[in-house]
């Protein structure tokens, strides 16, 4: 039997949607209403065919990108789909997910139920479905070939860069002074490290970013960046 995992913080809506999928399509659906529940949900499932993940979790620290990354790491064979309101609030997260992970389709929350179910069934049977037109306008025509999960390695050349990113991740209002204080690096070293990273940040859509923009990027892409930070820290 096809096993689905639905991750959405709108609990009542998620339950109803799960019932609709089970009754109309005949698939089993597990529901996680918080990012922290995803790990537990994955442990209880014998296998996973498709995960459908919402992107916006305003009451939590992370986004749907964290859940998608966790699921992809735990079950690489599972198909990934996004269900979202698709407004500009989540546009950048959606783009990151689309470019970095093998997303099979993107479903708009505002689409008719029949359309949503057809998209899910298409992913289950064929492996993909067209992106919902209402959300298509938020996605580039093609995925940039150089922007991959492994490309994050080039953002952490050495332990100094790891310190910079770690400081940025914890900075509330990142300035050179705050980053230097948090990382223990000298002001000039922070400046040099930033300059060293600029060419590698271009492939992630950041052209000469400010420290604040680098911080926002690091927070958004935390699940893809932190493995390399941990790797450098442990050396």
């Amino acid at each position, binding site marked *: 039997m096809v096993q689905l995992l639905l991750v959405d913080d709108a609990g009542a809506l998620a339950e109803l949607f799960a019932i609709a999928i089970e009754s109309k399509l005949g698939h089993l659906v597990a529901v996680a209403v918080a990012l922290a529940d995803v790990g537990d949900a994955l442990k209880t499932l014998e296998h996973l065919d498709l995960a459908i993940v919402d992107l916006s979790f305003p009451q939590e620290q992370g986004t749907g990108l964290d859940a998608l990354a966790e699921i992809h790491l735990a079950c690489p064979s599972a198909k990934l789909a996004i269900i979202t309101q698709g407004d*500009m609030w989540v546009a950048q997260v959606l783009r990151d997910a689309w470019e970095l992970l093998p997303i099979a389709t993107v479903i708009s929350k505002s689409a*008719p139920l029949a359309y949503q179910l057809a998209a899910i069934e298409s992913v289950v049977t064929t492996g993909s479905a067209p992106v919902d037109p*209402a959300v298509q*306008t938020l996605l580039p025509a093609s995925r940039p070939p150089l922007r991959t999960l492994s490309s994050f390695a080039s953002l952490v050349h050495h332990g100094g860069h790891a310190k910079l990113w770690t400081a940025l991740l914890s900075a509330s209002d990142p300035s050179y002074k705050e980053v230097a204080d948090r990382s223990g690096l*000298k002001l000039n070293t922070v400046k040099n490290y*930033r300059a060293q990273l600029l060419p590698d940040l271009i492939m992630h859509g950041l052209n000469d970013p400010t420290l604040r923009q680098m911080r926002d990027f690091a927070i958004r892409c935390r699940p893809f960046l932190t493995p390399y930070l941990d790797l450098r820290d442990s050396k």
Partner: protein
Amino acid sequence: MRGTTASQSTERSLALIAGREAWSDEGPTGSAVTKVAGVVEAAAFLIAAVLGWTYQLTAGSHAGTPVIVFAPFAFSMVCLLFSARQLLLTLTGRKLHIPYGVRVTVRSMLALALMTSAFAVMPGWASLNTWPIGIALGADAVLTSWALGWHLRPLRWWPAFVLSPYHLGAIGGLLGAATFQQSGSVWSTAFPVLVALHSWVIIASLTAWGLNQLDESEKADRQRLYDTAATVEHQKNAHWMHDDLCAQLRLVSIQVQSRSIEFEDVAQLLDDLDHQIRLRQLDAIFATETVRVAEIIQPWLRRAQNNGVLIDRVPSLDDVSMVVSTEVGREFSHAVSVLTSNALNAGATRLSFDVTRTEEYLSIIITDDAGGLSASELPVGRALWSLQQDLGDGQLVVTPTDTGTMVQASVARTERNRRGAIVAR
């Protein structure tokens, strides 16, 4: 409180010498008080140069070595260089990408040249005329500290200067010179320089303190404005939720309870309400002046989708990521609204959306399968006809296709074209 090590102190000094340009990653926009500080610094250097020449021209000739003769020119050049660079930075925000080490070295050399030439141009007690340099130094330090995110405490500068090894060394040197040399020349040349240096530090402290106060005052004013705007927005949202949203929901609820509508109609009513909310959301985005074309067409894609229409083609982010002004956005939104509604009313079952843009125009092209229509057939007074009048001559193109119609509406992006559209109405 943590103490400051010699290494940290040196690092901070170098960071200040490097100047704000080395630390400012932000774009050309700056706060008003940043611009004020930049202009103050530029003006202070300019005044210093003027005072130098005024003294040179009024105090009579000072025969001396070629270095002394060259000093006024060197002093003016350095002052003008600092002034012009600061003014350009303040007005255009364009930074020079110079390596940190080179920047520190060049600015150190220029600062040394400034000090040497200043005291050569205005020797003895005339060196007190160099007071504008204190203002320039204070403004420069405060601008650099803002770029660094470093909270300065300028009122501690003078006591720190008095107790610094450099100052104590200078005092020792002066006393030594006065003891072993002719004390008259020491007191008439070296001592005034020391007093002038003290005046620089005190004036720099007061300037930095004043600019910091101005910055804090501006931040407080800005915060008050934000709070007021947020309050107004919360009230407007609350009013809208009560008047429009709750009233509409109540209407659906009463209709369902009184069985005056069919079950299928409830979904339609809720879809209509969803559309109204999305238009309201778009209206709020228009107010931010950062609306993207993607956001403008999105509610109409959803509208068509909820009407059971199959969307064959939509533009990708590459075509619709551009940000437009509120005025252009509203006009474009109106065009998308009219074209989509017209296709839906005509009974379209398939729609395609395309967006093109030139320097002058932003165009939406909607292709439907709802039968043919030509521009000459537009009923006078109806939405499509009104849109044609609004856009101006030739900006609404209706092309019949095999199964329906392709309509292109072009909205003027430039002021000149907009005026043309208004004249054409």
